[in-house]
């Protein structure tokens, strides 16, 4: 048991596994802080993962793949925002609709475009980064250096997200819209616009998370390859009490559970029990064990501007 925890691979895998959870979790923080529950993040991740491969293979550039995926993610998020914010449709049902659609359209297009052989093997991958200085530190270097560039982008976004939400005027406004839209509007804040912004950011970040799966960690797309990460990210965000650093911490914890279960693959201890942990922890957080997680007051409630 001891050697498992002393193995730097476990900790490096934790960070790698946390990344595709942390990105949508950060995105979800923006969306829910503005008052929109976006469970469509799962579907947006999946669509982005697919189009990252399509664009990367078409142009030969993984960076264009990533950008294209983020644009597609943004477009899907805007469609969701239009229905959820402007048409005040039920956010949970819309999210389910987009997730079902995403699962169908990606598998359909995979089949229609590439046949049964899967995505092309010569799809380029995003580069990995060896951090000078850190990479030569024993143990720590093996954990922190050599990841996909998206892992480091995620860290930068994490700090930016915290700064934006809690230290800027726009961030304050975004949060006020999720807490009390009526008061925010009375104060002259455009509720609708800010909710679009929150959802758009969640779409872009979810798309990055999806692209990480297909052209960051691998260079291929498989049907339903997100396997519920958008939902786990939602749980991470709740466990992290709707804050960027909390979401990241929860993503690390959930990533650790996955990494550990992979290491325990060949031991008597059941990996399936460990895989349950993130979900159990999230329920406990919601029920209030160890400091209750309380959502923004107007989270999930559509808003109709008063004329």
């Amino acid at each position: 048991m001891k050697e498992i925890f002393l193995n730097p691979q476990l900790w490096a895998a934790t960070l790698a596994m946390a990344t595709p959870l942390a990105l949508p979790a950060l995105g979800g923080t923006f969306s829910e802080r503005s008052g929109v529950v976006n469970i469509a993040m799962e579907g947006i991740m999946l669509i982005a993962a697919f189009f990252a491969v399509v664009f990367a293979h078409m142009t030969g550039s993984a960076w264009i793949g990533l950008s294209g995926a983020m644009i597609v993610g943004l477009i899907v998020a805007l469609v969701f925002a239009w229905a959820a914010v402007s048409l005040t449709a039920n956010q949970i049902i819309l999210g389910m609709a987009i997730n079902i659609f995403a699962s169908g359209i990606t598998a359909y297009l995979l089949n229609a475009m590439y046949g049964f052989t899967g995505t092309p093997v010569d799809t380029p991958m995003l580069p990995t980064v060896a951090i000078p200085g850190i990479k030569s530190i024993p143990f720590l270097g093996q954990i922190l250096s050599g990841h996909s560039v998206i892992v480091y982008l995620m860290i930068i976004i994490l700090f930016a997200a915290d700064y934006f939400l809690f230290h800027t005027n726009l961030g304050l406004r975004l949060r006020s819209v999720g807490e009390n839209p009526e008061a925010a509007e009375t104060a002259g804040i455009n509720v609708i616009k800010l909710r679009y912004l929150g959802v758009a950011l969640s779409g872009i970040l979810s798309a990055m998370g999806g692209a990480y799966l297909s052209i960051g960690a691998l260079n291929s797309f498989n049907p339903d390859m997100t396997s519920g990460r958008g939902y786990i990210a939602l749980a991470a965000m709740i466990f992290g009490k709707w804050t960027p650093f909390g979401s990241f911490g929860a993503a690390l914890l959930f990533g650790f559970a996955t990494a550990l279960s992979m290491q325990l693959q060949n031991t008597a201890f059941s990996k399936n029990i460990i895989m349950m942990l993130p979900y159990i922890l999230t329920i406990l957080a919601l029920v209030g064990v160890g400091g209750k997680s309380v959502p923004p007051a107007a989270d999930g409630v559509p808003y109709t501007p008063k004329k």
Partner: protein
Amino acid sequence: MKSILKELYIPVVAVLIAIIIGSIIMMVTGFNPVIAYISLFLGAFGNVNNIANTLAAAVPLILTGLGVAISFKAGLFNIGAEGQYWIGAIVGVWIGYSFTGLPWYIHIPFALVAAMIAGGLWAGLIPGLAKAYTGANEVITTMMMSYIAIYFSHFLLEFGPMMDKSGTIPQSPVINDSAVIPFLIRNTQLSYGIFIALVAAIFVYWLMFKTTWGFEMRAVGYNQKAARYAGMNVPLNMVLSLGLSGAFAGLAGAVQMLGVQHRLYDSFTSGYGYTAIVVALLANNNPIGVIFAAILFAALGTGSQYMQLNAQVPGQMADVITGLIVFFVAAYRIAEVIKDRLAKRQKKEVKA
């Protein structure tokens, strides 16, 4: 009659729009949508066997759909029918293979009732109590409980206590003959389980619309404050309605095990729990409507396999269409927006 038409208006328009968008996607990707839809229809309803298989696929959807509809009617969002289905399947199969010597008329009801209780507890106990007493959002808790149920089934089947010891495949033993719900039509998947589903739908209709308890559940769903003011026990009703909702999802799992699969396979999803939400939504939570919505989505599922074989259109088109239908049912206000725009334009033209 008029009210039925009004209720049908949104789902029918949503289905039509979804079919049109589906056609466009097929044309862009080089397929003939007319041929595709014809083979889809024939695959679902082309002969007696296909109709039987479509009805068979509708059985778990009717039962899980009823479960979801009950919770929606009570103002709660049980999106964890998937997990409750698994728990029902686990309990149903376990009773099915571990008890011997029981006559079928005891063995089958025993397995079904136990599965209902298990599914009911899975939804009612943790998500229900958490919602009623701490306000924890049931959308998240039921979803989390779904994952826990699925990993629990992996735990049981992958070299766990429920794995069939005679092989190396992660699957449960086969249930005993006395627990098998017999097939109705040979060489199809259709079992007498269809009657359980139909009776369940009528029962739920009666319960929700003709009994005091059903009225209370609907009242709590409609206006919690008013229900509390009227002296109804709101927390208790929440727990009971989530529990009842889970019970039908659990029943779906057991009926599927006893009637079709006869053993539990290791899998990441049955898919029924999520489609159940779609079924309830399209039926506008009407238990009788659930039957027809379930048959529609079942037909999409069975028909799409046929479509892939005969028109070479990837079968996942069924999911694309399903997603679009749900989207347009949810975003039904698109129609109003378009009407408003048209009205405004007309006004402008009149002024000009």
